[in-house]
Every structure is written in structure tokens, then in C-alpha cells.
């Protein structure tokens, strides 16, 4: 089976080996990484991390809006690695995750996938 390397940039660059079949949360926790999580089906955002480099598949997530995805956030409980990746994990990585909606509204294309409309160019 194809294995990918996960580097945790905010854990002194620690590296782990994962497969592309199982979610990252499960595989990293299985190797002893302390990670926050809640629902484990991609709906509650507790497990969000920031993808610094590489590619993942997180089609099953429903917690993030399109702006959060554009800012690099990934939902580890459903995301799978599709290449070697570098992640920033834990709540420390959430600096850009939350925004005050009265200060900084979303544009229609930045909403969650089920209600977003395509960006007008």
C-alpha cells in the first residue's frame, strides 16, 4: 500500500507515516499524537488543522465553509492524505479559522458547499 509522510510543523517537525485509505485523525492518534476531536464524521470542526503543504481529500467534510477551505483548513477526522503533507495541528492552528460575521461577512462563493454560489469573475 502507498504510504505518505505527515510532518507536524508545530510539533518540532515530527513525522509519521500514514496510508491514503483511513482518515488522518485515526491514523495520527493511533501513533500517539494528541489531537482534539468530537463528532468524527466531519460535522463539528473540533479536529480542524491547517494544511501547510501537500494534498488531501476531504470531500466528506461538512463543517468548513469555502473561505476556511481556501485558508487551508482540513477536517482530520474525514481527510485522507493523497501525497506527503505538512500540517499545523491543534487549536494553535485555528488563528484564521474563526471570524466575527458582523465584522467580516462571507461572500456567496465563500459559504458552505451546499449553499455557495459560484464566484462571479
Amino acid at each position: 500500500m502507498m504510504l505518505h509522510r505527515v510532518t507536524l510543523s508545530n510539533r518540532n517537525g515530527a513525522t509519521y507515516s500514514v496510508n491514503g485509505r483511513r482518515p488522518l485523525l485515526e491514523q495520527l492518534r493511533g501513533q500517539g499524537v494528541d489531537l482534539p476531536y468530537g463528532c468524527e464524521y466531519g460535522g463539528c470542526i473540533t479536529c480542524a488543522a491547517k494544511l501547510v503543504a501537500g494534498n488531501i481529500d476531504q470531500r466528506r467534510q461538512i463543517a468548513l465553509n469555502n473561505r476556511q477551505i481556501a485558508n487551508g483548513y482540513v477536517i482530520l477526522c474525514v481527510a485522507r492524505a493523497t501525497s506527503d503533507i505538512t500540517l499545523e495541528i491543534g487549536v494553535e492552528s485555528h488563528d484564521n479559522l474563526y471570524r466575527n460575521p458582523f465584522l467580516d461577512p462571507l461572500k456567496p462563493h465563500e459559504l458552505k458547499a451546499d449553499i455557495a454560489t459560484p464566484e462571479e469573475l
Partner: protein
Amino acid sequence: MKDCCGPGYASPAEAINAPREKLLYTIAIYTGTGIQKPDYLATVDVDPESPTYSEVIHRLDMPGIGDELHHMGWNACSSCHGDSSMSRKFLILPGVRSNNLHIVDTATDPRAPRLHNVIDGAEIKAKADLSGPHTVHCLGSEIIISFLGNAKGEAPGGYLQLDKDFNIVGRWENSMGNIKFGYDFWYQPRHNIMVSSEWAAPNTFMPGFDLEEVGHLKYGRELHFWDFEKKEPVESFYLGEDGLLPLEVKFHHDPDSTHGFCGAALSTNVIHWWKDHDGKWQWEKIIDVENELHPEWPIPLPGVMSALLVSMDDKYLYVNNWLHGDMRQYDITDPHNPKLTGQVFMGGLLGRAPTVNGVEVTGGPQMFQLSLDGRRLYVTTSLFSTWDNQFYPEIREKGGVMVQIDCDPENGGMTISPDFIVDFGKEPNGPSRCHEARYPGGDCTSDIWL
């Protein structure tokens, strides 16, 4: 209390004359703070004669991390007053994110509650297809808990019934009718009525608040009236723009009254309902808090009235404006015509009271609990971890606070007590956030009379 009797009090009038509270319990969370520690139940000393007054004197850690404790409720209340085999002994603490229900024994040592058992969240999903627990009420000797979603976090969820030994009975309701969302509920047995309100699906509110989703109808705007015995909704009120995010619902404590109130959080309105002379349920908006302009923000700021409660004598209504930062007291002697009789600021985004009793307040007044005699209102500042992180990001470093507001039940009026403040920013494991509070001897949101 006479030994003939079960928990609570024979009537609201008797409850008002109960001894003053000496302890209170509040939940405190680490979920979403970045501190990988369990959420806990804190015991706060509220006896001014005690050397540890205004301090956390005990912390009961939950067994796991990431529950997001939120609201809680008792195994028994005054609805069991006639049953001497029952006692107000166990507090039920749901984890909104984990789905676990923690049963805590507060009677063996009220200062140091202990964990009695945990109903596993996975078992609830498997047996009842429910997630996102919120309000806990006892029904005579049984317990029902509103859940906001099914096992996949989709609305409307339903109600879990437990027996008095905390075994899962199954779903309480016979039908959810056309209800789109769940949240809070309260019932008034003499009128065979239950009223429930609407927040959103767990998958919508858990990740945070996208204001834009309100317009896409992902948040609630209806109130539902239930035939309590038949366990099914019979009538719904569409509140429209006046009732966006109708959250907390409370009836008068007087069991003969049909008047009740709901705080519509985003509209920042109080909705009042009652049964008219023809036996029809009616509703009206009785309080409308205007949005305020923040000097640098494009969108006017709503108050966000996330909670409300009624004093035990049914004379005063207390509401919060979490984003504006004020607590308000209204005289509701005439429930159609509330009169503002008190207002204090603590925290909030408008900068009106950044510091209270020497402690910097992050967050605004959010949950509150009133003493049975109506004189002491204990107020906490955190709403929900992800929402806190959006509106008050500094709360990660500063934690929540608990403030006491002294209320005048004779003439109206409120002032912040200068002698009391609990700074959850100074907790031993790091800044945590306090939320709902309950008093062992009963308070103004725990009891219903049959």
C-alpha cells in the same frame, strides 16, 4: 423539609422562602480552548460567611476530553415533591460534542460532587439515533433531554427518555410533526402543554456561526406547542424576522399560568405567549432590543439574547445581550407591557464595561441563574466554544468569569456586587470558560409544579 416529602417545594411561594444558597455548580470547559484537559463541574462557594467565598472550591473532571459541557439538569425537581422516594440528588451533564451524559452525585458530599456513571454517547446514537444534547427536565420520576440532531448531526433531532435509574427508555416523543429544529423546552402540566424552540442542526451551529446561513433557513424561527400527554406537536408559530434563533423558553412558575416567554437570540426580541379567553394560544413581541452600530464594523451588531429567566414570584424577567454586554431586568407584572427596571454592563463588544471588580471581562453576560428569593443573579460569560472563538477570541487566554448582580425584588433595579467575582482565567489547568449554573437547593430554572 418535612420527611413526608420528596424533592423541591410545595409551591413557588414556598421555594422563595427556602434557605439562601451556599454553593452553586457551574460547568467549565476546555473544549476548543487548546488546553487538552477534560471539561469539569466547578463548585463555587457563595456563602459570604465562608473563608473561601467567591472561590472555586472543588473541580470534578469528566472522564474524557472534548465533551463540551453546556447545560445541565436535575434527576428530580418539585414535580416530584409528593414522592418521598425521590430526591434531588443527581445532576445530569450532557456533552454537546461527545453526546455523553454524565450523571453526577451531588448529595453524598455537596461540596465535592462525584461521578455516578456515564451514559455513553455512542450508545445513545445507536439506540435512539440522537446527538447534540441540550435541555434536561425531569417529568415526575422520569427524565427527558432535548437533542438537536440525529446520529449524523442533522436536524431536527428529538427527545431522549431515561428512567429514574438512568436507563435509556428510548425516544420520548411520538412525533416531531413538521418541526425543523430543536433546542430548549419547558412544560406546564396543568395545561397539558409543552413549548419547544429552535436553534439549528448540530452540523450547522457546532462549527461556528455563519450569519449568512440564517438567510438560507439553516437556523430556526418558529415556536412549537405540544400536546404534552400525546407527546406530539399540535401548533407552530412562525415568528419570522421577529423571532430569528428562538432559544430559551420559560413558563411562569405559577402552574396555573399560561404565560411564557422566549428570547429570540439574533432578533434580540422577547416573544410572549399565552392562552386567550377562547382557549387559543397567542403570541406577541414584547421587547425589541435595537441593533447597535460598532464604529468599525459594516453590519449593525445585534444584542444576541441567548438566555432568559423568570423570577420565582413571576414578577421579573431577566435577559442578556451577549454582544452588547448588558443584563436587563424587566417588570412583567403585566406580561403584555414589560417595564425596564434594571440594566448593568459587564464586558461586551461595545466597550461599555471592560473591567468588573478588577477583572477584565472577555465575553458578555451569557448564562445566568437567579436565587430563589430573587436577590442574587449569578452571570457567566461564555456561550459555546466555537462561537466564543469567533466573537471574543481573547477568551482563549483570559477565560470566563462569574459575576454576581444584586437585584431588588421590591422596587426593581440591579447592581454588580462588589464583593464577588470568580475569574476562570486563573484556573489551575489554565483559562477555562464557565457556563450554566445550578444551586443544590433549587433555583429559578430547575423546578416545575404539577
